[in-house]
């Protein structure tokens, strides 16, 4: 396997292509070659000739004097984000024959900036899962140990980046689906502020939570991609007004001295001791650089998973109602009546999808709505309130990204609740709508049970504070390499 950092970064590729040192075709061709030989099941489809044609178009634009911040940068895109003319499967049999007639806004912005989408990556069906094992097309394997999962649901993009197939990728987050696989694979993963990136062209899962995120080998690359795709969009009424400003330039010059929150609730039972130790090292490095460490409490955070599995599944069961076999995708053959057609078509959903549709329908059904969904929204507001209180005292909060490193394929496949608990440290940011970044910070000590798997530490910040998070993440990235 290719170790992290051996391949050129997006920044390096764009610089060389922009300066005319290499053609855009070269990095795109090389990425396509690597991706067509990969054995991790990271990619579901490759764009081949079309990607090369687009690279040549980038070369013509560069030759014409256009300054393109991502000239010739090959990108992997999670297969729940629309790329015009390409099949969008969402890792599901239900959508298998669907060809997107349009580009997602994030894709159109990447194209404008000179990036080239080389292929679509594997995911848990409709982004529902934490291991990519729920994909109808088989699991994505971890580049550090092919016996282990890549994490999920954006496992394909995280594995493709960590294995050095591409420098950057797009994923999507509802409860940690970029950060958790990035941590498992040893990559940088970003969940932006809710509304930061347009969701036009992102297949909906939990609409009050969903957000497109970035995965990269470096903090600078992750920030550059976000800077490119972020900003308001008339096609998505939930986007924040304006643009985020400069997110990637000058991260090295920033002073890490700031107030860093250390929430006790994130360091309790169930946390791998090596991951705890990595967080403590990160904390101590920040303190040594002048940061003030503030112990604090986020008292409702331990209820995050319970809230998430009410709110997210309720929204999912509503959003998934559109897969009825009428307008696109798969339709079961042989039904002679409309309702039978719906029911048999939807029987093609995988087990996890059915589980969530059933749960979501249950918590929204007459007699249970108040007890479950109503209660869930109450506690969600309190989780948000806990963070608002914290921001009066700190600029960012440091926690683990995941309770454990990547686990073996199949280990949690039969225990949905154990799988859900993977997201225990990530869901709070989604429920509160705040940005969060995971950055690789050391590895677990190898034992007979497991190799030296990567560890991710997480920084969360107030809404719109992506820039500060990237500055702090860049500091930790430097310290991890030191």
């Amino acid at each position, binding site marked *: 396997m290719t170790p992290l950092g051996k391949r050129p970064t997006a920044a390096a590729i764009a610089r060389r292509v922009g300066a005319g040192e290499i053609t855009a075709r070269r990095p795109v061709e090389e990425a396509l070659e690597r991706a067509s030989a990969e054995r991790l099941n990271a990619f579901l489809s490759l764009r081949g000739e079309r990607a090369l044609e687009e690279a040549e178009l980038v070369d013509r634009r560069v030759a014409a004097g256009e300054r393109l911040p991502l000239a010739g940068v090959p990108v992997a895109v999670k297969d729940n984000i629309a790329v015009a003319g390409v099949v969008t499967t969402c890792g599901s049999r239900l959508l298998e024959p669907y060809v997107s007639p349009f580009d997602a806004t994030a894709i159109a912005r990447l194209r404008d900036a000179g990036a080239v989408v080389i292929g679509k990556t594997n995911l848990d069906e409709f982004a529902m899962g934490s291991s990519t094992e729920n994909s109808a097309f088989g699991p994505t394997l971890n580049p550090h140990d092919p016996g282990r999962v890549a994490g999920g649901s954006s496992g394909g993009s995280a594995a493709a980046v960590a294995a050095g197939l591409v420098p950057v990728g797009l994923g999507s987050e509802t409860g940690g689906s970029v950060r958790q696989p990035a941590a498992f694979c040893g990559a940088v993963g970003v969940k932006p502020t809710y509304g930061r990136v347009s969701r036009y062209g992102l297949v909906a899962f939990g609409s009050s939570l969903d957000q497109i995120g970035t995965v990269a080998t470096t903090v600078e690359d992750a920030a550059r991609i976000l800077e490119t795709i972020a900003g308001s969009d008339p096609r998505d009424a939930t986007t924040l007004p304006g643009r985020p400003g400069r997110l990637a330039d000058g991260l090295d010059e920033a002073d890490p001295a700031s107030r860093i929150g250390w929430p006790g609730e994130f360091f309790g039972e169930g946390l791998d001791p090596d991951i705890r130790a990595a967080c403590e090292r990160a904390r101590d490095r920040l303190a040594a650089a002048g940061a003030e460490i503030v112990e604090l409490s986020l008292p409702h955070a331990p*209820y995050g998973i*319970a809230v998430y599995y009410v709110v997210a599944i309720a929204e999912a069961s509503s959003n998934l109602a559109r897969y009825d076999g009428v307008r696109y995708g798969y339709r079961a053959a042989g039904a002679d009546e409309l309702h039978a057609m719906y029911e048999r078509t939807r029987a093609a959903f995988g087990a996890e999808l059915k589980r969530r549709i059933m*749960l979501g329908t249950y918590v929204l059904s007459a007699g249970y709505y108040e007890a479950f969904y109503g*209660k869930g929204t109450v506690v969600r507001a309190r989780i948000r309130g806990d963070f608002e209180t914290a921001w009066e005292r700190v600029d960012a909060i440091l926690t683990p990204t995941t309770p454990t490193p990547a686990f073996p394929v199949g280990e949690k496949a039969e225990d949905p609740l154990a799988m859900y608990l993977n997201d225990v440290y990530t869901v709070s940011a989604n429920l509160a*709508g705040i940005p969060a970044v995971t950055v690789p910070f050391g590895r677990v000590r190898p034992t007979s049970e497991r190799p030296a798997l990567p560890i991710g530490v997480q920084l969360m910040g107030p809404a719109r504070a992506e820039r500060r998070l990237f500055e702090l993440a860049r500091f930790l990235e430097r310290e991890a390499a030191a």
Partner: protein
Amino acid sequence: MSIGADDVRHIARLARLDLSEDEVQRFRRELSAILEYVNRLEELEPGRAAEPEPPDQPLREDRVVGWPDPSWFLDQAPSRDGFFLVPRVVD
């Protein structure tokens, strides 16, 4: 929190999901376990239901915007004839 097989069948009907008998039994167990976990929210003091309010959510004008070629969408339909075709709805 325990869910019976009839509850599972009722929810499946609402959700328009055709479940096998094996699936009914499996979901009865799994949904009960997950709802049991979710029930920990009851430990907390009750409060007023609140829809989350994401920051700065401006309303946009409701405008109709045309699409260059409707066939891009219609051609995706499993069955079509200038319209979306479905099996009969009533006898």
